[in-house]
Structure formats: structure tokens, C-alpha cells
């Protein structure tokens, strides 16, 4: 057991899924040509003024409701001043003294099934900065600036330092991801920077009440990187202290590709941001009516959905946990279930073949080449014994390749399972007749070990039927015929 306790707090930046920016009418869509989605306001042209996007405010309130937080009925924007080329105004418009979301909490579940509450200190609205494109991404020796992202609405969620391990931090991050995607305020696309994590880590002697000096590792955009960065940082801090050194308060960067971290700036080099209330924006007033209206129209939260999946579809806690945590996956699963009428198969295929394939090819479920309707069509054919599980894998591959619906593929490939008992009896009889040596071997084997010999016959039979024989039926017929020979 380690002699050290780890203390972790998170600051999470969540890009809100509004169509336009927080203070301008420019689009927030990802992936456009650089600087094509930056209007005069985003470029901080002289004389331009911000106008607050109401949808962003509503999304922030929805997050507050989701974590059972106090909603700031009057919140205010401030200017955070610093110079950087991707920050066009020379200040970031953000909230400090009066955030829109106050104290709240998020329950996480750990691998051993235990649950824990992580307290949220507050969440505030702010604008995202643009991106600097340095050497490699841009022309040699020159930095470029892309302001498409500048002004994208964010909520920054600040947790209390309630986590004691990378596992807890990741569980918390995943839970936040699940919440914001479930209520539809964020697309959750981590690879596009829709959620980014700053991790505050410190260590202290085991059992001590005094917190150690913390470091902040900024801008982690995957759960995996976060886990690695925390592990490395904890190790670094412990080594440092055990070697007689001390941790200095600093901001660090973790490179997920090289798996190394470096110091970005120390406390002494930190900016004095000179916050003051933004005179271009009025205080944000959220009325009780608006809060109630948003509360009434809140989409289902992940915890409620997981419980419902167990109740309604008879899923195991584990399956419900996986399917219910991810909103698009949950929606997909429910469509498949509704249309196929078979929740068990729908769950297995959605979590298994489909999720695995999407994961391997790094495709989000929203862009799945196999639609929920297609998968439901295929499951219906498994359920009515038209195809076997093995054939279904072929059908799935074909659907993934864009060959059409399950029925079309079954038809085109002649994959229909043979369940006609007359035809199957004939095939079994033929195979037994053609393999007398195998039959003798079966008869001469101990009764206890005979079961193992069946596989050989099955292989021959399936081959003879070109894989189309219904395996359960074949199994029955085969046993019956062999028993007759004993």
C-alpha cells in the first residue's frame, strides 16, 4: 500500500451544441475551412458588440438542473484579460463572481459497484478561444490562427477535489459526458474537442489533513490521456517528494502521443487576469418560469434511463449501465428493440458487434453505416430462425458494406436457414452414411466423452448445407439418429 494519498479535482470545458456562437450569429459547426466561420464580432473588429445567445443560457441551466444544482437567477459576465493571438479581443468573456450554476453533485459508480458523490463547486458560461496553428499544421516557420472556434459557447464545470484516484476521475469525466450528451447540450465528440479536461492533482502523506501543492494539467481531450496523465503526475510528485524535493504549483501539458508531460508555466509566471464586469453585457436574469419550463422539458438523465432499461427490457445492471450511459447508443438500442421486438438480441448486438466495429473504425454511433432499422431487420430474422447467429455475422458485414437491408442480403446471397426437418434429416443421413469411420468411433467412445465427437459431424453437416442448416434442429436430428445406431 502506498504511503501517499492522491487528491484530484477537475475543470471540464464542455462545448455547448448551439447552432451559433455565444455572442455572435456565426456558425459553430466543426471542420470548416479556417476563418470561414468567424464574423466581425468573432474577429473583434472595432465597434462590434456581443449579444448573448439565449440557447447557451438555457443549456447551462439544463446542466444545473441535471446535477441538482442551485441556478444563478442573476449571473454576470466578466472580462478575463490576457494577450494571445487566438484571443481576438485580448480578453475572454467569462463568469467569475456570479456563475450561472452553483453547487451541485454528480454520483459516480466504480468498478467494484460502489457509488460515490462528487461535489460540483460551480459551472459558468464562457466563450472558447480560437486555435493557433503552429509549424507542422501550417507553413514552415509561421504560425496561423483559425478563429472558427472563437466564441463557441462553453460551460466550465469545476469540481471539488473529491477524487482520490485516476479511476474515480475517469468515472467522473465519463459520467459528465453521459449527462451532457443525454440532455443534448453537447455532442460529446471528444476528438473534436467538445469536452476537454484540466486535471488538478496533489499528493499528501497517507491520512494527512493538509493538502499538498497541486499542479494543473491542461487540455486533456480523451479519457485515456486523462488516466495516463494523472498516473504519471501522481508518480512524478511522489518521486519528487520522496527524493527530498517539493512540488511547485504550475500548469503542465501532457502529450498523449509521446506519453510525456512538461511544465507550461509556474505560478510566478501566471497572468494577472484583471477580471472586471463586462460593460457590454447586462446581467443574465433567468426567471423561475424559464427554469420550470426547462425542468419540465428535460430529457431523461442517464441514471433514470439505466433503471428503466432494467425494468422495461429486463436487461442486466451491467448491460443497462453500458447502453444507458450513452445517449445516442441508448436511442439506437431502443429503436432496434422497438422494431425487432427482441431486447436481449438488440442489447447483445448493439453492445457487441456494432459497438466493437464502431470503436475500431472510430465512428460515432450517429454515423453508423448500419442503421438501427437495418439491425432490427436482421435481429427479426435471427429471432424467427430464418438465419443463424453465424449467418447473421455475414449479414451484418454486408450491411456494414452498404449492401442493403438484412432481407435483401439474405435473398441476394441465398442465406436462408434450412429448418425444413425433412430436408435436414436427409442431409444428416447422407453425412452419416458417408462417414462410417466417424460413426464407429462415436459408438466405441465412452458415453461421457461422446458429446465431444458431435462437433465433427456438425461441421460436415453445416458444410453440406452450405451453412444454411438450422443448428439447433440439426443437433436434435443428429443425436436422435446416432442414438438409434447405439
Amino acid at each position, binding site marked *: 500500500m502506498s504511503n501517499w494519498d492522491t487528491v484530484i479535482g477537475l475543470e471540464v470545458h464542455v462545448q455547448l451544441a448551439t447552432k451559433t456562437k455565444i455572442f455572435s450569429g456565426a456558425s459553430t459547426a466543426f471542420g470548416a475551412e479556417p476563418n470561414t466561420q468567424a464574423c466581425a464580432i468573432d474577429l473583434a473588429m472595432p*465597434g462590434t458588440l456581443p449579444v448573448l445567445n439565449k440557447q447557451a443560457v438555457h443549456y447551462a441551466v439544463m446542466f444545473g438542473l441535471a446535477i441538482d444544482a442551485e441556478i444563478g437567477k442573476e449571473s454576470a459576465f466578466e472580462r478575463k484579460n490576457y*494577450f494571445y493571438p487566438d484571443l481576438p479581443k485580448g480578453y475572454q468573456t467569462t463568469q467569475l463572481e456570479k456563475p450561472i450554476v452553483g453547487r451541485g453533485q454528480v454520483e459516480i459508480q466504480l468498478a467494484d459497484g460502489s457509488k460515490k458523490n462528487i461535489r460540483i463547486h460551480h459551472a459558468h458560461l464562457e466563450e472558447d478561444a480560437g486555435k493557433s496553428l503552429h509549424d507542422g499544421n501550417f507553413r514552415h516557420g509561421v504560425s496561423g490562427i483559425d478563429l472558427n472556434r472563437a466564441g463557441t459557447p462553453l460551460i466550465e464545470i469545476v469540481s471539488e477535489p473529491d477524487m482520490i484516484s485516476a479511476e474515480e476521475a475517469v468515472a467522473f469525466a465519463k459520467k459528465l459526458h453521459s449527462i451532457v450528451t443525454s440532455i443534448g447540450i453537447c455532442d460529446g465528440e471528444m476528438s473534436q474537442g467538445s469536452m476537454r479536461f484540466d486535471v488538478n492533482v496533489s499528493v499528501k502523506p497517507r491520512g494527512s489533513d493538509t493538502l499538498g501543492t497541486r499542479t494543473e494539467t491542461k487540455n486533456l481531450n480523451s479519457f485515456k490521456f486523462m488516466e495516463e496523465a494523472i498516473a504519471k503526475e501522481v508518480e512524478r510528485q511522489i518521486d519528487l517528494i520522496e527524493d527530498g524535493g517539493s512540488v511547485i504549483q504550475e500548469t503542465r501539458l501532457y502529450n498523449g502521443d509521446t506519453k510525456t508531460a512538461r511544465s507550461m508555466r509556474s505560478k510566478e509566471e501566471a497572468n494577472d487576469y484583471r477580471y*472586471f464586469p463586462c460593460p457590454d453585457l447586462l446581467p443574465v436574469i433567468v426567471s423561475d418560469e424559464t427554469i420550470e419550463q426547462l425542468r419540465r422539458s428535460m430529457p431523461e438523465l442517464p441514471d433514470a434511463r439505466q433503471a428503466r432499461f432494467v425494468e422495461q427490457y429486463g436487461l442486466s445492471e451491467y448491460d443497462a449501465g453500458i447502453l444507458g450511459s450513452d445517449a445516442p447508443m441508448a436511442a439506437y438500442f431502443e429503436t432496434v428493440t422497438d422494431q425487432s421486438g427482441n431486447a436481449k438480441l438488440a442489447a447483445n448486438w448493439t453492445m457487441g458487434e456494432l459497438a466493437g466495429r464502431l470503436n475500431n473504425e472510430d465512428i460515432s454511433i450517429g454515423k453508423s453505416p448500419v442503421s438501427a432499422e437495418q439491425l432490427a431487420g436482421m435481429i427479426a430474422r435471427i429471432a424467427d430462425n430464418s438465419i443463424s447467429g453465424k449467418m447473421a455475422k455475414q449479414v451484418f458485414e454486408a450491411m456494414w458494406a452498404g449492401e442493403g437491408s438484412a432481407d435483401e442480403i439474405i435473398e441476394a446471397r441465398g442465406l436462408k436457414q434450412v429448418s425444413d426437418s425433412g430436408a435436414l434429416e436427409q442431409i444428416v443421413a447422407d453425412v452419416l452414411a458417408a462417414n462410417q469411420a466417424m460413426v464407429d468411433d462415436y459408438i466405441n467412445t465412452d458415453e461421457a466423452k461422446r458429446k465431444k465427437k458431435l462437433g465433427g459431424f456438425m461441421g460436415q453437416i453445416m458444410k453440406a448445407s452450405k451453412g444454411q442448416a438450422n443448428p439447433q434442429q440439426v443437433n436434435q436430428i443428429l443425436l436422435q439418429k446416432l442414438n438409434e445406431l447405439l
Partner: protein
Amino acid sequence: MHNLTIAELVQGLQSKKFTSVELTQHFLDRIAELNPDYNAVITVTAEQALKAATAADQRLAAGNAPALCGVPILHKDIFCTNGVRTSCGSKMLDNFIPPYNATVVENFEQAGAVVLGKTNMDEFAMGSSNETSFYGPVKNPWATDCVPGGSSGGSAAAVAARLAPGATATDTGGSIRQPAALCGITGLKPTYGRVSRWGMIAFASSLDQGGPMARTAEDCALLLNCMASYDDKDSTCIEREVPDYSASLNSSIKGLRIGVPKEYFSDGLNPGTETAVRSALAELEAQGAELVEISLPNSALSVPAYYVIAPAEASANLSRFDGVRYGYRCEEPKDLEDLYCRTRAEGFGEEVQRRILIGTYCLSAGYYDAYYGKAQQVRQLIQQDFATAFEQVDLIMGPTCPSPAFKFGSKGDDPVAMYLEDIYTIATNLAGLPGMSVPCGLVDNKPVGLQIIGNYFDEARMLNAAHQYQQHTEWHNAAPEGLV
């Protein structure tokens, strides 16, 4: 034609006494001839103006002309004009051509006004003498060795010299009223939120307000009718119907209660200015107004509070001028820090740099509460002073500034002496109240102004009092020698 008021010009145009093209050409000729003496106009848009005048004449002929159709005006170079350089009086924006119009510019375009060009100003509206402009100082048409006031000195001098019958201006701490007083014209700073700030380059966002300058209150009413509007592009713009400011000009002022703050007649006031202001008040009293001595006890705190709040806001507002996207950029920056430092050191003038430094200091960790926090408290006290006063009176009147126009360079070494120029005007900006200046006399043959302060959105009452005053006096018709 250049001695006609806007009201008379509108009539002349509509009754076809002259065309807008004739009128526009006349003013363009005057600018060409006289502006070199005053340096009031820094960009002349002759070609666009004549084109707009031609269009205006067509509309006038067709009989569907809007309010100011064909009337030539000038815009302060702080208002963004689509396709026309908008410098804000700074080297930083010497090459800046906005791709959009300020809402104020748009409103005048809708009203059919013809824009002759852009007027000179203190750099980023920071100054009370027009000496901080990158384009050189504006000269006061009444005495060319004297300042015209600032920051809207170009607009004021242009109107005084009859280079245009009216002009737009802005006022953050007195920048409409003080130059109007020093140049002998009428200028009005509306209630904060009455005129859109969209496209008006920000100095101190919570104090900046655009307003009109002309020779008479009647003309200011006509201009304000067009200038004031609700604009959803400016979150601080207040959604409230714009009254017809011309409608109540002729109402009687009998029974009007005029508050005269004793703090505005203290030691620093020039005796000649005081005499002129007192006789203006007596004139209004003679017309039936009632003079009430009042107190604005926290007046003395307004200048120090202003010189914390305005620079603090400016320090952030001016951060965008970094040489990265538009405007001036230093030659051959060796790295990012060098780009920032030299661009801003070379692109901003001394006064602008001074205010950025003051503002940055006031907001710094450890100083915020003592300066910015305290100044905001003072601001509340000043608002409260006015609220109390307006329980007793309808309008407040006093001098616009302590003395008439001063000589160039005479306050150059002492920024604080310069800041005291705005001692009577700053409080209204801190409170967000409307204020105006009306010519009320000459001291050493230089104009002085009567300041009229109204309650929130009470511009119509202010214009009414000013118009009634002008119906019985001639100070607004006085002109610098040789310019009539």
C-alpha cells in the same frame, strides 16, 4: 446656404429652393477652402456624397423623401463607415476600412442624409483639447490659437465654421458638451442606452454615448429623431419608444423647476463664464421657470472615479489592437511579444498609453478593491445625488466647463489640469443621464456654454428648454468673425 439651420435646409430642399447636389457641393467647396485652417475634417467623401445627393434629389422630386433627405452632415471618425476609413484619430487605425456601418451611420443613411466625410477627434476619444489626434490638432474657429475642446473637437469646429450644418459626436465624460461649449454650438449627449453603440469604437463602454451637434436645439432635435433607436445589436441599448423630439420644442417653460447645483459654481469657475451662465438662468427665470438651489454633494468625487472606471474599461477595450488582424502592425517583429509591444508602443499615442496603464493598474490584483471597486461605489453615490435632486427639480443647469477655450499646449504638461476640464460634465456620464450644452455668451470673444442635465430619457424636456432659451437669445447665431 451654410448659415441656414437644418430645419431651414429641410424646408428649402422640400420646397425646391435648392437641390441637395447644390447644397452638398456648396459644403464640399467650403470644406476644401476652409478646412486647411481648422483641420476639423480628416476624410472627405466627395464622390459618395454627390452620389447620395443625386439620389436624395430624385426622392425629393418623387415626393417620398424621408426626414433628413438631402441634408449634408459629417460623422465623427469614431463611427464605422462601410468602405470608408475609420481611424478613431489613431495611427493604429490609419489603414482601417470597416466592412460595416455603425447603427448611427445606418440610421442617417435611412433618413436620406448625405455624408460629407469624417471629423477629426482626440485619439480614441481620449482628450479634452483635440491635441491627441494622430492627424494633428483641430483649431477653434473662434480663435485658431485655441483648442476646440475634445474629444469631438472636429465635429464641433466643423459645425461652428459652417463646414456642415450638423455632425455626429460621442461623449464619454463630456466629449460632446465641452467642445460644443468651446466652439459656440449646441450639442446633446442622450441618456445612456438611447443611441446604439454598435459600430461606435469603444473607449469606455459603460459611459460612451453618441449624440448630435448642430447650431440650434431645434436642429439637435431633428438629428436625435434619426439617431436614437433601439438596436438589438447593442445589449445595453434600451428598448423604449423614440418620441418626436421636435414636437414639444415650443411648449411653454412656465413653472419648469431648474435646479442650480451650488457645487458647479465653486472656485475653479471663470468669473466671465459664471456671469454668462447666471444671466442665461435669469433669462429662463424671466420666461417663467423657477430656479432652485440644489446640492450634488459628491460632485468632487466624479473626476477621480471617472479616471479609474474609464481607463479600466479602456484598458480592456483597446486590447484588440494588437497588430494581429487589422490596423497598424510594427515592422519585422522578432517574436510575439515584440509584435505586441512595438505595435502598441508605436501605434498608440501618449495619452492613450497613459490611460491603458492607469486602467491596467487599477484592475491589477491587490489594487482592484481600492480603485475600481471604490470608484463603482462612488458611481452609486453620484447616481443617488442626481436621483435626490430630480425629486425636487425638472432639469439641472450650470456651466458646461470651467472656462472658455484655452491655448494649445497650455495644459499639455499636466494631465490632471486637462482632466478638470470635464469636472461639470463627467457626473452625468457616471449616472447615465442626458446632458447638453447651449451657447450662452462670449468671454474674451470666445463662447461659453450653459449645461442642461435632464432625468433619464427626458431629452425632449431639455430640448424644449434649450429651444425656448434660443427663441429669446442670439448666442447660438453668433459666429466667428469672417465666417458668416
